[in-house]
């Protein structure tokens, strides 16, 4: 097997970790996915069953149409008065808020249900016990859905991004105290914000900028978030091998 030249090896070694997305990139992506997958979970049959056509449409129609559709879906969810996060977190077993979804879900398999007793059109009443396949599918969706529940609404996400962007700006100016202050403000305003990991990473870097390389926050971040896009920077800033 031929080897790379030393020049190529050096370039790769330097650039290997330099394509990491920024915190804003990840936040933006999560937000978009939350809008899409949250709406899909809410729509139940609409996206998974009969909605396969809708998904195909999404796939075909290109970015512009897709973003329009996503905005519409997100708007629909919001307008319906059903908080996606609430639905995603709620257990359908003991929360009436989940009932509409359970009621919609039986429509999911496109056809072959042999005349299920006169379907009591979508109501808040729990439907007849679902087939094992449908139940398994719903369980799967419920298990997946909470993934993006904490993301919050667009406004709070924008506020989070704005605050942490200011903290990052402070870091770039080597203003560790300022960055810490903004990170703490983020912690107060968004104690369970979607950008928690980014905030903790910023705090770790800020401590290192202040010369506090042994601060527990630094080690805690590297232990808890070794795969974070910020971990390489924390290591570099804090001279951690």
């Amino acid at each position, binding site marked *: *097997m*031929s*080897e*790379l*030249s030393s*020049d*190529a090896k050096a*370039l*790769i070694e*330097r*650039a*290997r970790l*330099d*394509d*990491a*997305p*920024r915190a804003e*990139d*990840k936040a*933006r*992506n*999560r937000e*978009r*996915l939350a809008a*899409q*997958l949250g709406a899909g979970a809410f729509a139940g049959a609409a996206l*998974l*069953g009969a909605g*396969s056509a809708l*998904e*195909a449409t*999404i*796939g*075909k129609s290109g*970015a512009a149409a*897709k973003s329009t559709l996503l905005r519409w879906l997100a708007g629909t969810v919001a307008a319906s008065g059903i908080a996606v996060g609430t639905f995603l977190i709620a257990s359908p077993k003991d929360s009436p808020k989940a009932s509409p979804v359970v009621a919609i879900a039986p429509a999911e398999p496109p056809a072959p249900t042999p005349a299920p007793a006169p379907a009591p059109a979508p109501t808040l009443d729990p439907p007849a016990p679902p087939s*094992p*396949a449908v139940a*398994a*599918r719903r*369980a*799967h969706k419920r*298990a*997946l859905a*909470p*993934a*993006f529940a904490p993301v919050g609404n667009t406004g709070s996400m924008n506020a989070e991004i704005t605050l942490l962007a200011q903290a*990052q700006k402070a*870091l*770039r100016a*080597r203003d560790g105290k300022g960055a810490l202050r903004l990170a703490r403000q983020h912690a107060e305003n968004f104690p369970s914000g979607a950008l928690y990991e980014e905030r903790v990473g910023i705090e770790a870097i800020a401590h290192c900028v202040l010369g506090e390389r042994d601060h527990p926050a630094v080690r805690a971040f590297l232990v808890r978030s070794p*795969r974070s*896009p910020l971990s390489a*920077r924390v290591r570099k800033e804090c001279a951690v091998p």
Partner: protein
Amino acid sequence: MPGHPTDMRHDAPATSDGQPTAPAVAAPSIANSCPPFADVYEQNFEFVWRSARRLGVPESSLDDVVQDVFVTVYRRLPDFEGRSQVKTWVFGILRNTVNDLRRSQRRKPTEALTAEPIDLGNDSPQDAFAREQGARLLHAVLTELEDDLREVFVLSELEQMSAPEVASALSVNVNTVYSRLRAARRDFDAALKRLRTRDEWRMR
């Protein structure tokens, strides 16, 4: 593209015809203990992002491509049976998504699928400049590679996957991986020398 997965075996990436695979969610698969989507996302987001860039996805399409990948992951996760690593399975989905983009770009020849400048805004100006230069050069060299070779090179040299892992991700045999990697290294070196020479010439 040789080795492009066209079969529908389990854990195979999405179809290559440019269409998202229909959910076709089989109940027995769902009953399997597929990893939670949140975990798959957290563990692979960065990998998908940087790999998309390295495969030549332009900045303007990066968000859409990464989103499409994870939407497909979400939809197909119930079919994942663990016969391959999640990472290689996700890469297969990314690869098909990028190929779809390439096909659509070929229909619009003015929009070449090439790497673009990188914004690394979190470092000191000197660090950011050095890193941006390095990343930009890397992307420029990668752009010179043929698609098949680039995929192998990205996974093997940059992601440091083993040959069997690369073979699994690309649905080719290990010998193919080795031969492509050999060619990719040769072409990478040649392209790097070419770009260096060009830059030196420009600096005169």
